[in-house]
């Protein structure tokens, strides 16, 4: 039976309230940018007002400047892409000196993503970002190789995930939400999500990219300079929705940010129905730089036509 048949009259989109309270962070819409797909917000401000979206999640920042991986760094794949940027970035000093202040002064909600190679690096980053003025939230990208554990990705191992989050959390003020960003390349993502939650994460962001490879028709070797890359885009959306769904089932009270292949307002609604409190738009920004605003507008329409006045009325509804 459709929601409309269920008896709700369509609303005027203007009467739909998209506002979200994400662990204390009030956002005008649930649509954030995905880390690594919006740099630190400045470039996108040409296409839309970055203060109008939920939050800008910044490219994962590391302790030191990082050159990243050799090119080629991307391959277009059917309805998706592989990337192997290798977390190129300016390092935390430059980020705090230049990128973060711009975002904060601009009035955007700055959700800072941090990444490390050891638990200690995460702690240092968390401490410094946690003390920086104007930070709205912190996303701990634990989908990174752990050099102290044979390069196994932190988020592939519940213990490593627990360790990072539990060490990081005390260094971040309580009123700044901390989300753990998880990889889908695991046998059971709910176990990792549970470990992060037990360690004090306020919520989880799912999904990071899936590991993939594509070959080069000329060299007959892997196309990416980094050999493997991360698969993203609409191709992976069903996997992302499934991850949100599973975590919502296993941990009904844990806030979830859904990310992976969102292109339209309905795609965002899918995540919310599966249980997401907020969503992020990544790869699709490359096709449509104003996607975070468009997706929010379309989401508003999707709710209006079905007669829902707020996100609270639909969050997790698919489980009911």
């Amino acid at each position: 039976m459709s929601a409309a048949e269920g008896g709700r009259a369509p609303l005027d989109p203007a009467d739909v309230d998209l506002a979200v309270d994400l662990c204390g962070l009030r956002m005008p819409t649930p649509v954030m940018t995905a880390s690594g797909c919006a740099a630190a917000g400045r470039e996108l401000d040409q296409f839309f007002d970055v203060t109008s979206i939920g939050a800008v999640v910044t490219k994962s920042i590391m302790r030191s400047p990082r050159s990243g991986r050799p090119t080629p760094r991307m391959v277009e794949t059917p309805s998706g892409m592989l990337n192997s940027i290798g977390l190129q970035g300016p390092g935390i000093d430059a980020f705090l000196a230049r990128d973060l202040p711009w975002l904060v002064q601009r009035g955007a909600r700055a959700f800072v993503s941090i990444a490390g190679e050891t638990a200690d690096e995460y702690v240092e980053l968390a401490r410094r970002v946690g003390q920086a003025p104007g930070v709205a939230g912190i996303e701990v990208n634990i989908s990174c190789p752990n050099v102290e554990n044979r390069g196994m990705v932190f988020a592939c191992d519940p213990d490593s995930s627990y360790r990072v989050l539990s060490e990081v959390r005390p260094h971040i003020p309580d009123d700044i939400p901390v989300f753990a960003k998880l990889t889908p390349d695991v046998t059971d993502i709910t176990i990792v999500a549970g470990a992060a939650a037990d360690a004090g994460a306020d919520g989880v962001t799912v999904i990071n990219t899936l590991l993939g490879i594509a070959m080069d028709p000329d060299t007959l070797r892997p196309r990416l300079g980094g050999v493997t890359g991360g698969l993203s885009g609409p191709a992976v959306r069903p996997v992302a929705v499934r991850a949100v769904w599973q975590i919502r089932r296993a941990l009904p009270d844990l806030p979830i940010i859904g990310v992976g292949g969102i292109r339209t307002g309905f795609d965002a609604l899918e995540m919310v129905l599966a249980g997401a409190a907020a969503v992020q738009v990544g790869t699709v920004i490359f096709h449509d730089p104003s996607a975070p605003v468009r997706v929010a507008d379309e989401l508003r329409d999707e709710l209006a036509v079905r007669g829902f006045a707020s996100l609270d009325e639909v969050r997790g509804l698919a489980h009911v």
Partner: protein
Amino acid sequence: MTVTQARGRVVSRTPVGDYHHLVIAVEGIAEHTRPGHFVALAVGGADSGMLLRRAFSIYRTSTTGRYGPTVEVVFAAHGKGTRWMADLAPEDEIDVVGPMGRPFALPKEKVACILVGGGYGSAPMFSLASALRERGSSAHFVLGAATTPRLFGVLEANRVGSSVHVTTEDGSTGTRGRVTDVLEGLVDDVEAAVVYACGPMGMLRAVADLAEDAGAWSQCVVEESMACGVGVCMTCVLPVEGEDGLVRMVRSCVEGPVFRGDRVRWDAVGTIPPGTLGAPR
């Protein structure tokens, strides 16, 4: 810089030799375009499996035509997206983002300039030539390609250029050989102060080296694979030496696509050269 995303409409698509000349009517782009800028076109239509835009140097713009403002590009149909573009017909819609990138730097003085275009790489050179000549500089063309159908714009070069030199590898038009074969003498002959170049990476490198040896500046348009084109994804980087002597992996979409030839570490493109800022130790 003002970058616009807008829905354009195809005015015409005309085969020219091995290429296609595409004219798009679109608002908000032509008036901000300077020589060296590029546009990023969405390919494949709604629900396409091709997610990423394709980048093309802007060949020409007009703000006064009967179709309203237009933007023109010249492209080779070699992959999936450009093959789709090769089927475009008048009235078809196409989504455009532009103008993007850093345009060519123009000399402040009146000097001799050489404009080197390899294949469709000549596309951005005609508006550049006009801009140079308006400011009193000369604009000598060197156009090269493997074969005649891969030359673009020889006639137009004759119209806007101070002189025109053509090379083909098979000798079917002009001098048999590569652009560098005629460039070497020309730089001296005209006492060039700046060499502008657009074409394959190998050509750019040779031109940049040759210019440097001759004591001229060079301005090269690089073609790196780009996911976003607007500076947010970090896919399009190449190693470029800064004023401070430090090599950085620099985004060619926003800090390029035009680079000073002597700054690019051509030998190390596709690698992270040791000593690069943030290189693995």
